[in-house]
C-alpha cells in the first residue's frame, strides 16, 4: 500500500512541449494535497520560471465507484449515494436522480412537492455559491469573506436540517415527491433568511467588487471565448460569463420553473471577474425565486398517489390490505423500471448536471451515468492557464468552480 507508481516522462511525452524534454522548463507537481486545489486535484505544471506553459490535470484521487455501486442497490437505496457526488449541491443531486426515475417510470409529482423542491434547490444553490465565494476569496487572500459566507451557510444548513434531518446529506427528495412534509416553522425560517440575505450579498460585494486587489487578480485572467466554451461543452456560470445566455431552468424547465419570474445573468468578458459577477447576480435571482415559490406554495399532498412506487403512509397499514402489500413489495424488492433509457438534466450551481438512467425490468438500475459539470468544465483548465502565472492558477481553479466529488464520481 505504500509504493507509489511513478509516471515517467515517456508516458507524458505527447503532452509536454519540446522544451520540457530538453530540460529548459520545469515540471512541477501541484499535488493532490494542496490548500488551494479545492480537493484532491493533481496538476502537473510545465513552468518557464513563473509562467505556466502547460498544465496537465490528473484526476481520479476521489474516485468512489458510485456508478457501479448504484447498480448494486435498488432505486431508492441508491438515492443515498447521490448526495455524495457533488457534495455542495446535495439537494440538486437528489433532485435530478428522482426526476430521472420519475421520467423512466412515468410518475407524477404533486405541485406542493414541486414547489418545495424548487425552494430547497435554490437555497442549496445559494449555499453552494457561498462556499465557492468563500474559498475563492480565501485563495485570493480575503479571509473575512470566508467567515461571512459560512455564517450565512449555517442558516441554510439549519433549514435543510429542519426538513430532512441532516445538514448536508439529507436525501430529502425521493421518487414521487419528498420524504415528508415540511415542518410548521419552515416558512417563517425561510422568510427570515430571505429578509436578511440581500443585505449580506451587498456586504460581500462591498468587500470584493470594487476592491483593486481583487480586480487586479481577476480581470483578464482566464479569458474564455464564446466559441471555445461551446466547443468544449461548458455549461453553467462559466458559459454565461462568456456571453451565452443559456440556463436549463429557462430552456428546458423542470419542477415548475416556468411559473417563476427570474433573469439569467450574463456577462461578455469571459474572464474570472465576469464569472464572479455572474455568480453574485445568481445569488440575487435565487432569492427572487425562493420568494415567489414561498408566496405561491400550494397546499396538498407531498407524495404521488401511485402506491406502486411511493410507500403508503404508515397510518393506513393497520386498516388496508393493499397498503400492506404495497409496503411489503416496496420494502423487500423495490419497484421495477422498464428496460429503456432516459436522460434528464438540471441546472446545478456548476452547470448542466444530468443523469442517464437505464433500467432492465428489475428493481436495480442497469446503468446510471452522471454527466457532471465539473468533469467537463475541468477540461478547459489547460486552455485557460496558458501564459498565466502560477499565482493565477489558484484563481483559475477557483473560478471554474470544480467539486472533486463531481469530477471523480
Amino acid at each position: 500500500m505504500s509504493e507509489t507508481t511513478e509516471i515517467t516522462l515517456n508516458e507524458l511525452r505527447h503532452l509536454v512541449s519540446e522544451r520540457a524534454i530538453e530540460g529548459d522548463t520545469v515540471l512541477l507537481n501541484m499535488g493532490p494535497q494542496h490548500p488551494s486545489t479545492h480537493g484532491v486535484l493533481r496538476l502537473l505544471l510545465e513552468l518557464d520560471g513563473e509562467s505556466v506553459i502547460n498544465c496537465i490535470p490528473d484526476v481520479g484521487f476521489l474516485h468512489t465507484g458510485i456508478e457501479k455501486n448504484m447498480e448494486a442497490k435498488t432505486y431508492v437505496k441508491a438515492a443515498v449515494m447521490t448526495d455524495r457526488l457533488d457534495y455542495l449541491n446535495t439537494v440538486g443531486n437528489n433532485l435530478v436522480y428522482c426526476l430521472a426515475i420519475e421520467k423512466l417510470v412515468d410518475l407524477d409529482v404533486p405541485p406542493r412537492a414541486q414547489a418545495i423542491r424548487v425552494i430547497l434547490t435554490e437555497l442549496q444553490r445559494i449555499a453552494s455559491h457561498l462556499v465557492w465565494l468563500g474559498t475563492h476569496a480565501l485563495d485570493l487572500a480575503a479571509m473575512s469573506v470566508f467567515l461571512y459566507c459560512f455564517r450565512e451557510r449555517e442558516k441554510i444548513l439549519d433549514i435543510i436540517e429542519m426538513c430532512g434531518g441532516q445538514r448536508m446529506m439529507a436525501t430529502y427528495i425521493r421518487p414521487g415527491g419528498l420524504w415528508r412534509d415540511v415542518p410548521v416553522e419552515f416558512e417563517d425560517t425561510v422568510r427570515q433568511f430571505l429578509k436578511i440575505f440581500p443585505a449580506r450579498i451587498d456586504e460581500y460585494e462591498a468587500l470584493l467588487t470594487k476592491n483593486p486587489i481583487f480586480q487586479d487578480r481577476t480581470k483578464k485572467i482566464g479569458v474564455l471565448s464564446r466559441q471555445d466554451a461551446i466547443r468544449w461543452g461548458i455549461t453553467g456560470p462559466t458559459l454565461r460569463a462568456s456571453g451565452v445566455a443559456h440556463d436549463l431552468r429557462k430552456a428546458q424547465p423542470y419542477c415548475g420553473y416556468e411559473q417563476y419570474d427570474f433573469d439569467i445573468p450574463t456577462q461578455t468578458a469571459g474572464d474570472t471577474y465576469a464569472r464572479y459577477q455572474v455568480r453574485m447576480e445568481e445569488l440575487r435571482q435565487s432569492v427572487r425565486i425562493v420568494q415567489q415559490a414561498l408566496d405561491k406554495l400550494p397546499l396538498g399532498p407531498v407524495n404521488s398517489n401511485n402506491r406502486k412506487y411511493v410507500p403508503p403512509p404508515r397510518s393506513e397499514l393497520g386498516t388496508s390490505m393493499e397498503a400492506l402489500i404495497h409496503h411489503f413489495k416496496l420494502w423487500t424488492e423495490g419497484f421495477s423500471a422498464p428496460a429503456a433509457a432516459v436522460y434528464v438534466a438540471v441546472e446545478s450551481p456548476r452547470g448542466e448536471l444530468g443523469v442517464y438512467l437505464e433500467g432492465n425490468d428489475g428493481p436495480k438500475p442497469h446503468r446510471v451515468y452522471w454527466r457532471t459539470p465539473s468533469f467537463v468544465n475541468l477540461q478547459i483548465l489547460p486552455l485557460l492557464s496558458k501564459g498565466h502565472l502560477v499565482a493565477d492558477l489558484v484563481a483559475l481553479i477557483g473560478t471554474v468552480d470544480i467539486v472533486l466529488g463531481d469530477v471523480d464520481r
Partner: protein
Amino acid sequence: MDAHLQAATQAIQERFAGQVSEFRDQISLIVAPQQIVEVCRALKDDFGFDMLSGETAVDYWPAQEPRFHLVYLLYSLQHNLRLTVRVPLNGNSPSLPTLESVYPSANWHEREIWDMFGVRFEGHSDLRRILMPADWEGHPLRKDYPLGYEEVQFSFNYDEIDARKPYAKE
C-alpha cells in the same frame, strides 16, 4: 417530435441507414460504429447540434453481440433540442473512431470510457486511464468485474474479519 429534430433524424436515416426510436419524448438514433464520426459531423454542421453533453457506454454482458452500447448525448444550443446517438459494439476488443475532431470535449469522456469499459478509440490523442490508478488492471464498470466489497463486520464474525484486515502498523 419537433420539426427540426424530425428533419435531422430523417436525414441521418437516409444517409447512414440508422434507426430511430422514441421513449418518453426522447429520440435516439442507432448507427453503426464506423459511421459515428460522419454522423456527428453532419449533425453538428448541418443541423446545429453544437454541444456534446456527455458520452458513456452501457454493458449488456452476458450478451456478446452487441455487448456494449456507446451512448452520445448531443445538445443543440440554438434550437434547444436533445438527441441521443447509440452505437452497438461487439464485445471482443471493442474499438471505434474517436470523436475528438468533431467535439473536443470528447477527450476526457473517451478516456473515461476506456478506463471503465475497455473500449478503444482509434485516433485518440491521449488514451490513458483517468479515474483509476495508472497501473490498475481491469475495467471496473464492466458487468463481469466484481463490485469488490468487503464483508460486513457483525458481532458474530467480528474477530475473524479483524484478524484478516490489513491494519497499518506504525
